[in-house]
């Protein structure tokens, strides 16, 4: 659990390059050149992770999504 949280935080900071403490759709679109996902797919991923739908992806929401991903893999 601890490792998962730390890893999630690492990945969160990759997305939150400006260290705002949250990720916006704009941050996600910026990743498009670095990740093999289309803008539509990135938007879908963002919406999936943004549990409360407020347009800001917090570390907590991101960690929840990452935990779900690890659960899928195991």
């Amino acid at each position: 659990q601890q490792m998962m949280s730390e890893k999630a935080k690492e990945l969160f900071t990759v997305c939150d390059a400006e260290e705002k403490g949250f990720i916006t759709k704009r941050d996600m679109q910026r990743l498009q050149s670095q990740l093999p996902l289309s803008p539509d797919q990135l938007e879908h991923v963002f919406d999936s992770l943004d549990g409360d739908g407020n347009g800001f992806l917090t570390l907590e929401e991101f960690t929840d999504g990452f935990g779900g991903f690890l659960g899928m893999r195991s």
Partner: protein
Amino acid sequence: ENKAGAGGAATSEGMLANFFNSLLNKKSGAP
């Protein structure tokens, strides 16, 4: 445009998996 093919990557789970895998690869320095 849907490049997912028959692998099912068009699903939310597939996209999330792709997203996190890509981030992990990026973080680990893999090409």
